[in-house]
């Protein structure tokens, strides 16, 4: 491949990656892939990719190709080598972005013990009103509180997707969320058991809001909060399907 064509393809892929990330950022879809606290890093990446594409374009236009043979022998200057970097673009465009669902939870397993507390966790979830706590808050309380009794019987109101764990009886399911520390590769599913007579009729992966008093239960030998549901209603998938600790 000629140097010109090689450089042109490079500009094309750099600009493509830059635009792809920018669009994901602007549409808010980036949080389907990474924890939002890493967004500044992605912005840095977008800017640098843009600068690289522009520099290379001007470099190519300026025509000082006489010294542009660097890094450019026949081994590295192959079409397939370049095209591999277009793969994220192809996958990102062809496969619509969808958050991880119950099938992924089944592969990864329900992380009941969820030691995601980290040193950074504050005690705000202990003081927050019971019906504003999300699933992660409840799991943290169950993992770290020395005395659970003040929390038992409190009315919870949480949103999550339905996951039918094979270890549970027919009238129970798990209302689950994925917790993402860094990117989707480290997602772990956490959840609370819900007792609900029509639970079996709920389709896997549908999003529901669950209300009811909290009790203590066990799953696979680990303590896990249980909601004795008084209301289970289908809701839209939230804009932010993951929880970020």
């Amino acid at each position, binding site marked *: 491949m*000629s140097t010109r064509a090689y450089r042109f393809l490079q500009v094309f892929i750099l600009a493509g990656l830059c635009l792809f990330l920018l669009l994901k950022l602007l549409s808010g879809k980036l949080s389907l892939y990474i924890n939002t606290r890493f967004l500044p890093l*992605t912005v840095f990446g977008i800017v640098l990719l843009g600068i690289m594409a522009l*520099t290379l374009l001007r470099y190519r236009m300026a025509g000082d190709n006489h010294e542009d*043979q660097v890094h450019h022998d026949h081994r590295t200057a192959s079409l397939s080598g370049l*095209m*591999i970097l277009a793969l994220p673009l192809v*996958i*990102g465009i062809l496969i619509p972005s969808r958050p991880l669902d119950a099938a992924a939870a089944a592969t990864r397993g329900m992380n009941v013990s969820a030691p995601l507390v980290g040193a950074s966790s504050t005690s705000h979830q202990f003081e927050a009103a019971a019906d504003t706590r999300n699933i992660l808050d409840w799991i943290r309380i169950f993992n770290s509180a020395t005395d659970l009794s003040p929390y038992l019987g409190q009315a919870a109101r949480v949103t999550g997707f339905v996951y039918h764990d094979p270890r549970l009886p027919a009238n129970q399911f798990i209302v689950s969320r994925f917790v993402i520390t860094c990117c*989707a*590769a480290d997602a772990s599913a956490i959840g609370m058991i819900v007792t609900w007579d029509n639970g079996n009729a709920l389709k896997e992966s549908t999003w529901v809001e669950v209300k009811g008093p909290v009790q203590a239960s066990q799953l696979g030998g680990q303590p896990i909060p249980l909601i004795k549901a008084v209301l289970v209603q289908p809701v839209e998938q939230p804009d932010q399907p993951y929880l970020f600790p």
Partner: protein
Amino acid sequence: MDVALSRRGLSRWLVSAILLGLVLVILYTSLPVSSWTWLWGRLSTFATIFLGIFIEAVPFLLMGTLLSGLVDVFVSEDWLARLSPRRALPAALVGASLGLIFPICECGTVPLTRRLFRKGLPLPAGIAFLLAAPVLNPIVIFSTAAAFGWGRMLLWRLGLSLIIAVTVGLVFSVEKEPINILRSSAFEVELPMLEARQAEKSIPEKLRRALVISTDEFFEMGRYLVLGASLAGLLQTFVSQTSLLAIGNGPLLSVIVMLALAVLLSICSTVDAFIALSFAGTFSFGSVLSFLVFGPMVDIKSILMFMQVFRRRTVFYLVLLPFLLSLLAGLAFNYLSI
């Protein structure tokens, strides 16, 4: 010649695309609908994990290649040669601590290490830098402390990474010339470059030059990030983690499982402490520690990047030695129950 090459390349791509299309059509008509929805769901899980790793790692890779480009243009060989110690042990120690100045993770160390070798950094220093920099740097120290607190996990992680990196660096000091461990292409491509730099240029010219170099390196190393992210994504989509964790009992097996996980998950060293934390409940201190020490040195994407830069034999030792030393360390903690 150029045209013929690109034509052959293009036609090969076309043929493989058509073949892939045919296979898909045959599969589509022969498989029941339910398996398609299953496959589609899995595919979207794969895409999410793959893009997650890629999007997360790209800024770090860019940072590494940018630093490498800047080092190439602004750091002179004389300066580096004057500053770096000649004797093996001091060189390895200095190399291992270089990460404190270049805060990058494992995606960035490989291109930067190669660049420093070309600039004449002694071998033990380069190897120690390659292995230690992903842990011994401010960002990773901070993230490990955020996950585990300023306690013994952090101290042992830093200490063991330093010891292992320096040890492997010393082992490599039996070779005198970096050229003996690097793939030959890593050197000869650069030759025209040296002449080009002789004609000194203005600062903006130099910056532009650095950007073009880092772009080339981004494409060279980025492939392995893409391949590594695909492998990790496939594994995470189709292999159940619970089954892996189920075998991970006992002082020996737990360490081996955590070492395998470190390689397979290929998580960036800046955040792997949080992942390790989620295993800390089920796994022993020694096995989690070995995960934290070994993962930043060796994982799927770094092995692929090593192969691009180093000779096969070097890659073999770069994987084997840290593996054995991390295994040893994990076992020591488990059996002595420190």
